[in-house]
């Protein structure tokens, strides 16, 4: 990570810390612990195995869901955006179901896939996958035909157009959806970990909340925030690596 994002994060953390401190002073420090106490508790938890177990389980669920969502939705978005017949067939289904809040299907997923990780990962992947699918499909449709013509004029086949034009031109759209989807994924992760599990940061937060152990609750919240920021930066880094041309500084 270069210095610039570190500096940016540091500024945001300081600003949040100041606001948090003011709110904690206003509320008397019981419901909302003081930030220094929460940070101390968080740093102390980072030295424990149980925290990293929760963090690891949550990370596994989020990353697996993101990989599955991207692996399915990006190619499907490519096909829908470039093959009109497939788009005509699938687009009505996608756009009719897109506005439905998929989170309400969680009980159905728990019934279908059991109480284990499969239901939780599937739920996150479904919600994130829709975003990646729609963004990639729209992105492919917006690619100027001159690029495909350019490859075809050199004797390129449909396969060449796919490899040389559609995939590289669609990648930034796919990565943008992934980056934006990180926040949604972590939010859904928290929700799915509130049910039928005893592992994960979501469980840790809700369990501590039930026990009125607010310092542990905030340890879980800080852990989830850390995970969200890390996933966002990883997606950002992957985009910068895969789409170098998007980040050029004009000479």
């Amino acid at each position, binding site marked *: 990570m270069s210095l610039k994002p570190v500096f940016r994060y540091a500024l945001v953390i300081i600003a949040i810390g100041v606001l948090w401190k003011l709110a904690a002073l206003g509320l008397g420090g019981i419901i909302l612990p003081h930030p220094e106490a929460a940070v101390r508790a968080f740093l102390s938890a980072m030295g424990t195995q149980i925290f990293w177990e929760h963090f690891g389980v949550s990370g596994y669920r989020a990353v697996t869901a993101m990989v599955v969502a991207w692996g399915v939705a990006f190619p499907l978005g490519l096909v829908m955006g470039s093959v009109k017949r497939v788009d005509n067939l699938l687009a009505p289904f996608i756009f009719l179901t897109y506005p439905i809040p998929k989170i309400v299907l969680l009980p159905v997923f728990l019934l279908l896939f059991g109480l284990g990780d499969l239901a939780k990962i599937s739920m996150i992947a479904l919600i994130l996958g829709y975003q990646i699918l729609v963004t990639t499909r729209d992105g492919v449709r917006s690619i100027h035909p001159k690029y495909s013509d350019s490859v*075809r004029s050199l*004797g*390129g086949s449909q396969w060449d157009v796919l490899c040389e*034009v559609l995939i*590289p031109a669609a990648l930034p759209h796919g990565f943008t959806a992934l980056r934006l989807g990180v926040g949604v994924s972590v939010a859904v992760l928290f929700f799915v970990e509130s049910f039928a599990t005893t592992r994960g940061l979501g469980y840790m937060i809700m369990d501590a909340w039930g026990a009125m152990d607010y310092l542990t609750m905030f340890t879980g919240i800080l852990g989830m925030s850390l995970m969200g920021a890390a996933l966002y930066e990883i997606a950002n880094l992957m985009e910068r690596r895969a789409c170098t041309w998007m980040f050029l500084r*004009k000479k």
Partner: protein
Amino acid sequence: MLIAENLSKYYGGEGVLDNVSFSLGREETLAVVGPSGCGKTTLLYLLSGLTRADSGVAFLDGELIGRPTSDISIILQDYGLLPWKTVVENVALGLKIQGVFKKERMERARAQLAELGITGRDSDYPANLSGGEQQRVAIARAFVSRPRLMLLDEPFSSLDALTRERLQRTLLDVWKLRKVPFVLVTHSLEEAVVLGKRIMVMSSRPASPVAVFDNPGFGDESIRDTKGCFELLKELRHTVEALW
């Protein structure tokens, strides 16, 4: 040799090209001028095989042009360079599609770039190049696969006057070296006189050839300063003004 016979094209029932016929010898160049939107670009798309004619046929050295091949290179209006590929990758793209091994295609691409005066920019992306440099890269990409016919769609229209003249000279230099016939579509009558051994004037839609001029001064580097150029330009302007 390129032969076009009665090429016609319709879009949504509206005629764009109407019975366009002409031929182009092995060491000839043809400049096509016509009013905006008359179908000049469509003509190049038909000749490249990117678009199919509704009627009529075109042959290159006796072979029917049915689909795009590496024998015909086209330079599109705004160069058609892929923004996600570096300069050298863009030039080598046609060779990659032909299945040429990476080492060889990169060497050939670099040599072609050097021939067009672009060195040390291999790893840059098109966005980092000036309009003139992008055009040189597009010309390099068109020539590197050693085509038998070149098609150029208003290649210098977005460049400033000096860069345009410099690139016209570059194109002529490469043409003299390779003797690849080309069809050039342009709005500029002057450009048509500098680059066309023959100049075909098209009518408005549906476009068809209305006059063809021979250009005896073609190839002369100082053609702009000759009386012949002035006379031909005058004649072209009269024809065009009467038609458009």
